């Protein structure tokens, strides 16, 4: 972190809370998250299904469902997305910030050539642009994500999974956003294609000087590409720090379980002994007393159930565990 201050903060979330109104009562999906993404920085959010990470992503461009109530501030390029006028929000989407959604491989229109699909947001944001200029821009974008310009004429079914993901990234770049959010961008991909996509994202951050927020359940992927990582559990951040610290020296027992789930090849302790975590995450409508991780925690003691531990400094970074400092 060389610079601070609002100017370099592309995304600033302050105490963000999201509650869904459901027929079975309020469901707090996100319970007070602080997160900043600066220019040129890659920030990762790790956690399993239901931890609130995709809900958090949806608030970045006010895409959360109607029954969700959002509290706290979500500022993109200095303006609060949740309160801005509709016209400003429209201008911000694609051009200020864009999202590569999870399951992107199935979200391309199967009966439209991919070039048309990439051109669509350009047409919306720069209606004056000539067809030739749009075509040139589409060609540039395809080449930027490592595809040949002639791919513009392909239909999605003619592309492999990795190529479709590249098209999705080209689309996200179409209107030159400063902030890109990628939700599970490599989940359905092979190791080699995953490595190619991570290389591409890294190069884009470096060359375009954008900020990237990346969501994954695979802590090892985040450790590989991110500058900083936040680990979420049951709607809260339970640990954050540099990617190397969080992956190699997890302080929260949940982070340790996530980190241990993907073994280091060569580690004899992991042979015939897959790491994991018993049980399922809690139902957000009826969270356990005290620490929400306590029912699954291998280190749980009685006082863990008395109050939800706040994020507190443990060895120089925030960890929400009362036992984190103990040996």
């Amino acid at each position, binding site marked *: 972190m060389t610079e601070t201050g609002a100017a370099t903060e592309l995304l600033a979330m302050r105490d963000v809370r999201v509650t869904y109104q459901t027929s079975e009562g309020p469901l707090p999906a996100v319970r007070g998250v602080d997160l900043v993404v600066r220019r040129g920085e890659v920030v990762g959010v790790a956690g399993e299904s239901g931890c609130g990470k995709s809900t958090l992503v949806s608030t970045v461009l006010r895409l959360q469902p109607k029954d969700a109530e959002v509290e706290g501030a979500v500022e993109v390029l200095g303006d609060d997305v949740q309160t801005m006028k509709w016209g400003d929000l429209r201008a911000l989407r694609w051009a200020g910030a864009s999202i590569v959604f999870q399951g992107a491989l199935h979200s391309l229109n199967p009966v439209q050539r991919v070039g048309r699909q990439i051109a669509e947001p350009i047409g919306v944001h720069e209606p004056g642009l000539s067809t030739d200029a749009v075509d040139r821009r589409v060609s540039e974008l395809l080449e930027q994500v490592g595809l040949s310009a002639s791919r513009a004429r392909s239909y999605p079914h003619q592309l492999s999974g990795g190529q479709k993901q590249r098209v999705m990234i080209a689309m996200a770049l179409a209107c030159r956003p400063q902030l890109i959010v990628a939700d599970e961008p490599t989940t359905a991909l092979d190791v*080699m294609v*995953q490595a190619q996509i991570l290389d591409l994202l890294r190069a884009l951050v470096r060359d375009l000087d954008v900020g990237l927020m990346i969501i994954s359940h695979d802590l*090892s992927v985040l450790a590989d590409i991110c500058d900083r990582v936040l680990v979420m559990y049951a709607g809260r951040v339970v640990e954050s720090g540099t990617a190397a610290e969080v992956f190699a020296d997890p302080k929260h027992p949940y982070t340790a379980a*996530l980190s241990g*789930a*993907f073994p280091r*090849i060569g580690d004899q302790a992991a042979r*015939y002994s897959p790491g994991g975590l018993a049980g*399922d995450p809690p139902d957000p409508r009826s969270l356990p007393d005290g620490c929400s991780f306590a029912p699954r925690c291998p280190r749980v003691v009685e006082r863990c159930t008395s109050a939800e531990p706040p994020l507190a400094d443990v060895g120089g970074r925030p960890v929400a565990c009362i036992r984190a400092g103990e040996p």
Partner: protein
Amino acid sequence: MTAGPTDAGAAPLLEARGVTVEFLTRAGHAARALDGVDLSVQPGEVLALVGESGSGKTTLARTLMGLQRPTRGQVLLEGRPLDYSARGLRSYRRRVQMVLQDAAGALNPRQNVYESVAEGIRLHGRAKSDDQGRSEAELVAAAMSDAGLRPPEKLFLRFPHELSGGQKQRVLIAGALALRPELLLADEPVSSLDASIRGEILALLLKLRQELGMGVVVVTHDLGLAWNIADRIAVMYLGRVVECGTTEEVLIAPRHPYTKALLSVVPEIEGLEPVVLTGEIPDPTRIPAGCRFHPRCPALADGTAERADVAGACRTEPLEVLPGTGEHRTACHLDRVMSSTPR
């Protein structure tokens, strides 16, 4: 800790000999998804088939399961060729079961857990033939307990949408286990699951091997998974096995440039210098001449093969099919020279 059961002298439970599978594409070209694969699985062994999409690993699993007939070559159970008649396949599937990729999609959404698990038991008349005279309900409950769904009675009437991802995968495993198979084929058993559940399912597979002596063939692109549970690994590329050996041999001392590249991109903080191969596995209608990996091979591109005087062979001389058992082997011209040179 579970010791690997690999006993060099034992007869293989399941074998593939020279298995080739060809498909005709819509344009009328022959696509060779498998191009001569020899493979053997010992009783109680955990074998991992690894490779990228398009390597043929899923086609091989389907062929081992009898879902796909080989164009050439044979699948053998205890030395006897697989009988593809309806009756032959039925008796085969009492002994060899498969758990498909994508647990969420593989369960019938309108069938409750009991019905899903009982389906195989009914199809195979398993309750009538049970040596302990157990009823269908008892067999379903036992299979569910074995798969870690406890207490089973509480889950009988649940529907798939009421289950977590891990529970769905366990229901599929329970359905396969109800038949007490000697071998389970699992296609990417954890790739759609959360990190924390992944360990549980893998531990379950190991426990079933330990307690029931069940062998497992696991198809995966995840080398960490193989390190967690496999005794042996076969690395596949474009329809062939290109390297095989024990898990330690293949993952700690890989010799094929393809295996080395796959290992180098497993995300880790410290580790090998990543070798990110460009492009993807070629189309199986156009298998490259010589070594099928040569157009993407980093050792050919950086001149290592040239210096070892094998570059010509890499481009023109096809490699032979690796035998399905035995020592650590690779299908690689460069490795053949390197391993025969005294070091």
